[in-house]
């Protein structure tokens, strides 16, 4: 089964025209809160993930995944030729309620545990509870100020709540500690320069903007985390 997931903070209105124009016959999804990016921890797109019947990852390509390339075709052919994995044989179904409870218990015991605050905030964000996620993500970002991931998640939560200025501020901090991350960089551009993305994408602006930002970043090296 072929499933496409658009990583667009603009949600359905941003990507549906593209799916419609492409005449998509496959299942078309969108991930406006970067839940997939956080769970799979990728910093570039396009990506390909081949997942078997038991929910186990069999192949991944992060960045530069081209559906029509010979290498991709071979990976997909090999994947489809695998004998069916028996559901339940290898799969571990994550127990999110138990994970949430474990993280809440850990935070009750050690309120300043950055990992537990981040894990709980991300879990709530994945469950579309951005309001509930913000305090834990903000705490995680404060406890681990050089954690790009904590600031990125906090920015995603703010974005989900429509707080664009706060989102941009958090995402800029995230980018400062992970400058190779194009998912973060482009989210910032989409917040601050929406006219460069809709109704059409201004690629020459992106090239110029990237060159400008790279030049400025040369003189502003990030502190090592």
């Amino acid at each position, binding site marked *: *089964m*072929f*499933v*496409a*997931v*658009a*990583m667009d903070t603009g949600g359905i209105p*941003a*990507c549906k025209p593209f*799916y419609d124009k492409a005449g998509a016959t496959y299942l*078309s*999804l*969108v*991930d406006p809160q970067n*839940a*997939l990016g*956080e*769970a*799979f*921890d990728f910093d570039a*797109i*396009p*990506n*390909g*993930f*081949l*997942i078997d*019947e*038991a*929910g*186990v*990852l069999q192949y*991944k390509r992060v960045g530069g*995944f081209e*559906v029509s390339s010979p290498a991709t075709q071979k990976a997909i052919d090999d*994947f489809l030729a*695998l004998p*069916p994995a028996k*559901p339940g044989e290898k*799969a*571990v*179904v*994550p*127990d*999110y309620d*138990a*994970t949430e409870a*474990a993280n809440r218990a*850990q935070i009750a015991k050690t309120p300043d545990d950055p*990992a*537990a605050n981040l*894990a709980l905030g*991300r*879990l709530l964000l994945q*469950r*579309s509870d951005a309001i509930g996620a913000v305090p834990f993500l903000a705490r995680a970002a404060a406890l681990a100020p050089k954690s790009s991931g904590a600031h990125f998640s906090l920015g995603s939560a703010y974005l989900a709540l429509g707080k664009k200025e706060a989102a941009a501020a958090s995402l800029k901090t995230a980018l400062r500690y992970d400058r190779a991350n194009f998912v973060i960089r*482009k989210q910032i*551009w*989409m917040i601050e320069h929406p006219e460069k993305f809709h109704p059409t*994408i201004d690629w020459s602006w992106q090239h110029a903007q990237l060159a400008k930002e790279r030049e400025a970043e040369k003189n502003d090296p990030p502190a090592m985390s």
Partner: protein
Amino acid sequence: MISALALYAVVGQNQAIEVGKPVPDVALLDMSGKSVRLSSFRGKKLILFNWATW
């Protein structure tokens, strides 16, 4: 409880998922706004293509 703590450790460290490991059960949206979980594809071979309009 052991499995919950094991998962907590993975989520807490935000490790990149690896080939041979189960994928997290992420919730996404279809074009009608309905939530679709990765776990709903269990039992099928899934080719997940991840892109953006930008």
